[in-house]
């Protein structure tokens, strides 16, 4: 009897492929194939709503068009601003809340669960409801703001100066708990003996924070920001329902613009090129970020 096959039934190798196969097949069919399809279409002048018309190969024309279009760079700018402010606010508030929750007062488990609620909700439905809160005539948000300082009438969604902030506020409200939870895990991972040693060495609380707490939380915070960065680069649902990219194109993020080109103007070839560019951007940035993050972790 061979040593390898000592148990009855299928060999381990067969079981491994049997178990992994279906998942890989589905991912290839519903994720990778469409991606390759999109890359192929990005080199053609295909219109998905014109059935029967043979698409023609146009080379890099779509890519050149996308990159030379000023409007695209405006959308990228809007996306970059949105990402900058949401990530900054969520990092600061999330870390702050985590530090406070880490004081282990009574009831902090319950409060953590309550704080986390917004991020589990449907972003599209959240967007709809915030249009009510932001309503310039009857909205609760406007009422509360005016209660503390009378700005008079203002329209968070309708004014092109305020609209970018309206989406930053909602996103921060929803997702700060995310960074908070992950930072909290980081804080709890710091072994107590580090602080004990610091106390013996008469390090001040502030020094302990700078030299022990912060370096231990940093990798966790960076991980949280990676997740949020990817999500907000793709941001679509909440903003579509809240401002639908308006007024004008003040809050038209890259993926909202992509949806317009692809599903309203049906410029399939052109929008595929845009999608590929977005995908390469996110993948490129993501990879560089992970490398930097690992460097920091090693230190």
């Amino acid at each position: 009897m061979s040593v390898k096959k000592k148990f009855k039934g299928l060999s381990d190798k067969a079981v491994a492929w049997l178990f992994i196969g279906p998942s890989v097949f589905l991912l290839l069919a519903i994720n990778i194939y469409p991606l390759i399809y999109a890359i192929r279409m990005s080199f053609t002048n295909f219109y998905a709503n014109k059935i029967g018309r043979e698409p023609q190969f146009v080379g890099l024309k779509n890519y050149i068009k996308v990159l030379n279009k000023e409007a695209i760079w405006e959308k990228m700018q809007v996306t970059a601003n949105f990402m900058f402010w949401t990530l900054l606010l969520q990092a600061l508030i999330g870390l702050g809340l985590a530090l406070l929750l880490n004081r282990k007062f009574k009831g902090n488990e319950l409060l953590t669960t309550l704080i986390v609620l917004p991020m589990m909700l449907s972003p599209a439905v959240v967007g709809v409801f915030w249009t009510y809160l932001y309503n310039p005539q009857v909205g609760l948000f406007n009422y509360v703001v005016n209660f503390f300082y009378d700005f008079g009438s203002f329209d968070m969604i309708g004014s092109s100066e305020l609209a970018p902030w309206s989406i930053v506020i909602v996103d921060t409200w929803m997702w700060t708990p995310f960074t908070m939870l992950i930072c909290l895990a980081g804080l709890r991972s710091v072994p107590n003996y580090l602080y004990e040693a610091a106390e013996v060495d008469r390090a001040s609380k502030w020094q302990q924070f700078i030299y022990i707490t912060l370096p231990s939380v940093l990798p966790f915070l960076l991980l949280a920001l990676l997740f949020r960065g990817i999500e907000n680069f793709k941001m679509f649902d909440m903003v579509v329902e809240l401002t639908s990219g308006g007024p004008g194109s003040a809050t038209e993020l890259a993926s909202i613009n992509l949806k317009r080109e692809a599903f309203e103007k049906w410029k399939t070839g052109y929008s595929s090129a845009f999608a590929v560019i977005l995908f390469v951007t996110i993948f490129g940035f993501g990879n560089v970020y992970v490398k930097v993050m690992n460097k920091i972790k090693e230190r």
Partner: protein
Amino acid sequence: MDTSRSYLEPSSFSKKLAATIIIVYTVITLIPISWMVMTSFKNVNSAISYPPEVLFEPSLEGYVNLFTNRSRQSQEYLDSLPAPETWYEELVRSREMVITGPSKFLGRYSNSMIIGFGSTFASVFLGALAAYAFSRFRVPLKDDLLFFILSTRMFPPIAVAVPIFIMYRKLGLGDTHLGMIILYTVVNLSLAVWLLKGFMDEIPKEYEEAAMIDGYSRLQAFFKVVLPQAMTGIAATAIFCMIFSWNEYAFAVLLTQFNAQTAPPFIPTIIGEGGLDWPAIGAGTTLFLLPVMIFTIILRKHLLRGITFGAVRK
């Protein structure tokens, strides 16, 4: 006496201060959600009064409006009708309207249920198989495969929506429950595989090895020993998949219209006379968010794992 207290323990003053700030934050962050729930119990007029009404006479008008279609009628016509038989008919009549039929909400809600449960079951089942294989066997290119599975989550949904739209049109899967179940299953697969792999890594190998020495085959050991051991992890993963499918909007709005549309694209379209019907939207929102809030409370111990794809465990 308090001398035994470790100097690492925060002082009671700093604890109290922290607790106060956290409580204030919690209250502020819950206001929008509570406001949605409150609005669902207002009548149309009190929902658009200014300053916003905190105290109001509760009404079920929002819920009635959510579930029915109504049309406005003249007073003479209303007088000519027989007396209303139910409380909701009476409520609608008092607004000079009659109920013309049920609204689409129930259908959209049950679509969300069917697609949510279907895709959750499929992704957890397939995910558990793959996770087990990654956890226990030497798979060639394991790390690359795992990263590939994770990277599919980075695609902006709109980027692959057009090809999927065309593919589905060819296959006859456009605007069908099956099509959406397959799509959400695939989107959730990466989460399911990564989370479940973490949970399976924690189950000692010795369990199934003992079973196999007792004469179980590998498959029997997996189904009879490993799966029951992994039940907590499977339940947590299932809830995460369910919440994702339940909340998904981009694919739903782009790929479905009449037949398989779920609730998220439908709720924003609830329109009353002269603008959006806020109590009805509040009612739809409340009914839609309630399951997720309950799930979140059940999940609280596994939240961290779920939101980081298993990268951070407690």
